């Protein structure tokens, strides 16, 4: 089970990012738990200033903009 956090204030790009990760995980058959983090102090705690950011199992893998689908697949497989 992978724990994925999408960091963002709830803007459209953040919603798109979370949906993309869930879709990719379903395609690849990877069990994930996607959590949306909207608390600003928590987001900044990860050192992320450009949202949406993505955290996989505690590591920041992406910041700023909707990630590319192949990048999402790589995080889920890795």
């Amino acid at each position, binding site marked *: 089970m992978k724990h994925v956090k999408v960091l963002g*204030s709830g*803007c459209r*790009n953040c919603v798109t990012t979370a949906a993309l990760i869930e879709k990719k995980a379903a395609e690849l058959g990877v069990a994930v738990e996607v959590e949306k983090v909207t608390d600003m*102090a928590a987001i*900044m705690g990860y050192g992320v200033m*450009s949202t949406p950011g993505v955290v996989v199992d505690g590591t920041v893998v992406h910041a*700023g*903009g909707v990630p590319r689908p192949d990048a999402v697949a790589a995080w889920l497989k890795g």
Partner: protein
Amino acid sequence: MFEVFTLLADWAAYDLAGLAPATRTADALHFFVEDVTKIFTLLVVIIFVMGLFRSVLAPEKVRGYLEGKPRGVAYVLAVLLGAVTPFCSCSSVPLFIGFLEAGIPLGATMAFLIASPMINEVAVVILGSVVGWKIAALYVGTGLAVGILGGWLADRFRMERHVEDYVWKIRMGQVAMPAPDTTLRGRIAYAAGEVREIVGRVWLYVLIGVGIGAFLHGFVPQDFFARFAAADNWYAVPVAVLAGIPLYSNATGVIPVAEALLAKAVPIGTVLALMMSVVAISVPEFVILRKVLKVRGLAWFGGFLALAFMAVGYLFNGLMP
């Protein structure tokens, strides 16, 4: 280089639609086809090339550059970096907090936030290509000046008082930016992603902007603007700024409107004031900034921008009527 778009518009308006040249509908359709094809082509090409070279700066890096700089240097650096750093307005809040947390003065942070949406390399190249390089240079120069002045005033009048208290308590973690993929394949994939993301975000504003421009170009007679927007008409500039407050577009979408107005001999100061007001003063941006600024701070910010854009308008209408 851009004649191809004019020829395409000629063909669409006179051959395909079969309209007689110099009629209102033909003029409007011609404007629409020429601008839509030209602006979208430029958008895709410029964003792709910028993406290849990764000349775009991440806000995380900008924070590092501004940290610990003397105030005077920080204002100038902040507007210049703001001009070349793209960020989605939904990142305004973490960016604002991140800058202050690094000890960057509020003024430099505000200067960055003023300059960033108004000026970006994509909009500047399109403005230069569509309207002319003189106007593009004036737009960039005054945009940077307004940002620097706004930053200086924010510090001079201690606007820190109007920042929400929780902002000062947030501590930021170590910035952990994943390393970018710098192989050619990685660069192309990144550039293509940038094109998709940015064009996906701005296309509707551009279409609406070109639509308004085409309508003004084809259907609104020049006398109308001569009567209401001449340089000696004192209220044209404030009306342009006030009209721009509820209207919102990004910097690229407002260009075709400016093009149409300038072609109708609306004075340059009035057009610049309208463009800046439409791009920099917007309800969605203010709703986002309300999360970090108290109502008073926001009122000062909006009031400053409106007055500054009016000053820009009168200045250029006076200098080049």
